[in-house]
């Protein structure tokens, strides 16, 4: 037997590579490896035969044989990767999902739209240093009206149709009522703390009122109050302007007009330019063609209200404001009937 020649090594390599080229599954690849590179494999056999060559040939053949081995091993590795990759790709095709099928349902909890908008409102004022306080929904006439400069028999009482609570006061003749606004907390907060005061009061309110698409007898209000030395109407404008921008967008414009609430002087209401028609006001259902939408009442705290809680009206000034979160939500979300809020129809609630 003679040892391998460079030609025979080369032929073996060519044959092996030719076979390798045609293999496309891992099992056959392994068979190929055993056939050529295994302990009894063709190449291994050839390399063993080198030992029979004379010294001069042995050297050259040895180098050739090692190169051939390295070459086959490298090509095998490449082929293994190619085959694995091809197999993976086939699996991907096989396992393809219909991604349009719905996912596995998981219960969806939501907060009531009023809760959501209240949080948005409170956050906006919170960022300006206002803290949340809450008060009783059942109030005395004293706090709901008298401390707000609305004494018994005052014609302005007609502005708040009241649900009275059936209650006989044994001594003081006090009247109990469902609060008509959250403003009573103005007096309660100021009575129990010294200036500076900067609070907002979210909560439920009640009125003796027929309901329609824009009126509810049960609704929420957010009252705000800031009192300190040096607070001005200009600050009121700035605060409410900032609020309007936070809720309705940076480019919102605001407008103030004279309005009347007995517990402020001067009193105003604030409108924002209509976001539905960009203030154009032609044929617009949201702003009823005016280009402006009233969103809240406000004003400088009346000196009688300050004096009533023992604050010196010469020293302290402040502003108060009140807004209806349902109205804000209706504007933001295009809700056309306030009665939807508390009728608990899930088809409504699930939209928020």
């Amino acid at each position, binding site marked *: 037997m003679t040892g391998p020649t460079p030609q025979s090594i080369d032929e073996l390599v060519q044959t092996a590579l030719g076979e390798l080229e045609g293999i496309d599954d891992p099992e056959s690849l392994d068979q190929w490896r055993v056939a050529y590179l295994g302990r009894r494999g063709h190449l291994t056999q050839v390399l063993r035969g080198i030992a029979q060559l004379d010294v001069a040939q042995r050297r050259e053949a040895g180098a050739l044989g090692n190169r051939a081995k390295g070459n086959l091993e490298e090509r095998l590795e490449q082929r293994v990767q190619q085959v694995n990759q091809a197999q993976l790709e086939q699996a991907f095709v096989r396992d393809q999902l219909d991604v349009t099928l719905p996912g596995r349902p998981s219960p969806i909890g939501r907060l009531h739209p009023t809760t959501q908008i209240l949080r948005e409102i409170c956050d906006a004022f919170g960022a300006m*240093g206002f803290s949340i306080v809450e008060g009783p929904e059942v109030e005395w006439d004293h706090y709901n009206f008298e401390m707000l400069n609305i004494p018994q028999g005052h014609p302005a009482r007609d502005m708040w149709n009241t649900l009275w609570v059936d209650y006989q006061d044994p001594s003081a003749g006090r009247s109990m009522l469902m609060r008509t606004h959250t403003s009573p907390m103005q007096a309660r907060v100021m009575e129990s703390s010294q200036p500076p005061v900067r609070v907002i009061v979210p909560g439920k309110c009640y009125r003796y009122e027929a309901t329609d698409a824009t009126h509810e007898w049960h609704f929420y209000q957010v009252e705000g109050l800031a009192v300190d030395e040096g607070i001005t109407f200009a600050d009121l404008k700035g605060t409410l302007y900032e609020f309007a921008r936070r809720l309705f967008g940076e480019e919102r414009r605001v407008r103030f007009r004279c309005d009347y609430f007995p517990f402020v002087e001067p009193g105003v209401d604030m409108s924002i330019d209509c976001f539905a028609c960009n203030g154009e006001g032609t044929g617009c259902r949201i702003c009823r063609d005016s280009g402006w939408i009233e969103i809240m009442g406000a004003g400088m705290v009346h000196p009688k209200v300050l004096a009533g809680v023992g604050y010196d009206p010469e020293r302290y000034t402040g502003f108060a404001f009140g807004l209806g979160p349902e109205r804000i939500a209706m504007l933001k979300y295009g809700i056309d009937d306030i009665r939807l809020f508390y009728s608990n129809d899930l088809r409504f609630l699930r939209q928020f």
Partner: protein
Amino acid sequence: MKVPLSWLRQYVDVVIPAQELAHRLTMAGIEVGDVVETGGWSGCYVGQVLDVRPHPQADRLRLCRVNAGTQELEVVCGAPNVATGQKICFATVGARLLDTHSGKHETLKAARIRGVESQGMICSELELGLGEDHSGIVVLPADAPVGTPLDDYLGDTVLDLELTPNRLDCLSILGVAHEVAALTQTTVTEPDVDYREEGPPIESLVSISVTDSDLCPRYTASLIQGISIGPSPQWLQDRLTRAGLRPINNVVDVTNFVMLELNQPLHSFDFDKIRDATVVVRRARPGETLVTLDGVPRNLNTEVLVIADANDPVGMGGVIGGANSEIGPETTSVLLESATFEAYNNRDTAQSFQLRTEATLRFEKGLRQELAPIALRRATQLIHQVAGGKVARGIIDVNHQPAPALKVSVTGQRLKKILGMDVDMERVEQVLASLGFHDIRHQGGGPESNGAVAGLEVTVPYWRNDITIEEDLVEEVVRIVGYDAVPTTMLSTPIPYRQVGPMTQLVAKVKDALAAAGMQEVISYPLVSQADLEKVNHPEGDGPPLRVANPMSADHEILRPTLRSSPLAALAANEGHGEGPFRLFELGRVFISRENDLPLERETVVALLAGRRLDYSWLHSSPMNDEALDFYDAKGVLAAVLARLGVEPEYRPAEDPLFQPGKCAQISANGLDLGVVGEVHPDIRQRFGLNAAPVSLLELSLDSLLESLGPAERKFKSISRYPAASRDLALVVPQDVPAGRVREIITRHRMVQQADLFDIYSGENVAPGTKSLAFHVNFQSQERTLTAEEVNRSLEGLLKSLEREVGASLRA
């Protein structure tokens, strides 16, 4: 309040378009709700019928020759009331009018009617859009100027004001005129009030005394004798009609006119019906009655102020007159009253008799005393003018409580302090003067202030009753100057420290936790009905709930003492739209009445689960997935919520009238009752008409929850660095041992870090009267890795405890 511009122009020039005027008024606090225009009759003129002849071809039609100003034209007219000499509304060919046949506005064409050419039309109310009447043509007053465009003669614009209760003054045209003058920098011409007096002085003809001057600080009166009652002249009728009032007769019309002009309600008595020519203003006597002008007999009480003659009431002062002294066609002498009545008493009377009249609308807001004689003279003048007669010399003026001139001051410093800007005092003076404030005196202005005016003292005009303090003047200034002039600044004072209340925080956390657990928030009306309480077996023993004294309906008359009924009602209402899953919660207050105090308002949460556990899904197609939400779903939600709050609850079987016996647990933590969870009693489900079964409900008191949280902040427990060893433990216990009890024994055992129940079984291979509970138990130490031997020793100890305490044994 309706303000026709035609009337407004009597006192002030309107120099800007009506829409612009409406805008300025609105911005200044006089809200114009609507601007109603009548007119737009191009091609229509005041015409005169020169003669009327029969139509040769039709009995019902007439041929009329009309002077239309620049030309004479012949028209065919079908109206029965057309007559020679009438001033009429004439539409020339080309005018756009309402076609009464098509109902559309169309251009008037020349037409042949039954063979005769008609070169225009004499119009009815309907065709002009003035009213509904189409039975005849509109006949204009005899003094209507022929040839005048009809728009100029009949067209008008009416501002419909929506006034705030403080702006009483704008219930009058002159009041509005003063606003207009200030807003457009024009001036007001007030009507003159002169008239000729003759004969003896009024004091010799009538005696007037005011007994209860606290309710009537000023009473003025005049006497006009020898008048004739009849319809008012056209101009007066027009004024009233356009302002929305119905003309009655010349005397009554004048009192209404002056009320709308000056704001002062007046009353006219038939003087001959006033016994002994004597008027006494006093409180009613016990048992007195009066038939009022509306024909209703009224039982008066002693707080009602009456105008009486020598014997009996002839009117309720400032509210309504009496039928016994009413002006009628036969009246020849009028005693005219213009008085100031006390506001609160007037309002009380109006409310208790349900008589909110035009008069009380004004008196209840407090009219100024100075107004009474001004209005009296104006009305006297007009009655004399339109009804003739002689005016007695002088007026009666009983004024026991004269009010001093109302003076108010404002300083530049205060303006700055409130508005946050400097306001030029000259501008302030100009604004106040334009609104009618007078006798303006400068304050400061001496050498110490370099001649600058520091402040102004002004006298408030008689028509304003809303200005009493400096801040009122600040508003007057800023509302005329405009709010845009005020700068926009952010609060620059320090933010006061205030911690959000713990209940406010807890409410937010609980809501978030429930929503995170898949629950939908609902909000119901906190006023409920008796039936609602009965439906949920609300126990009567807790004391009667608070009620609304004037409920709008029986559905909402009780301040809810429990939150249980509302979410059940919400579930019932929603079942019609689908079969679930329903996961609802409501968090709100319940009201617990207290002696001599406001009720306790307790934040409470109720959550309920009903319907399918799983939404319909292609992934849930096995029948098992049609299972309904049940008690343990509610407990799962509860566990999730309480875990987020850091509360470790305990449950024990409980009885509650809302729940099915045997399916209700009391929830407690740290020794406090937090609430209940259970499956709603079938009877109650039925009362709400619920289809779903079961309905699981949980109720938590947030007061108790807050208390159970304790003051301590949550503390971190370090996580063990050593591995845990786990063992599965299958126990057999008597059937009546609650699983919770077994778990409690396991978890409190030394080295046990966690125990999860993963199987419950009773039946084959388990002795009757027992059940098998399988727990997955983790053992772990904070100090070291536990050896198998340690774990086994601990497990043996645990098994002994279980056997001793609940008779548990390892399942064979």
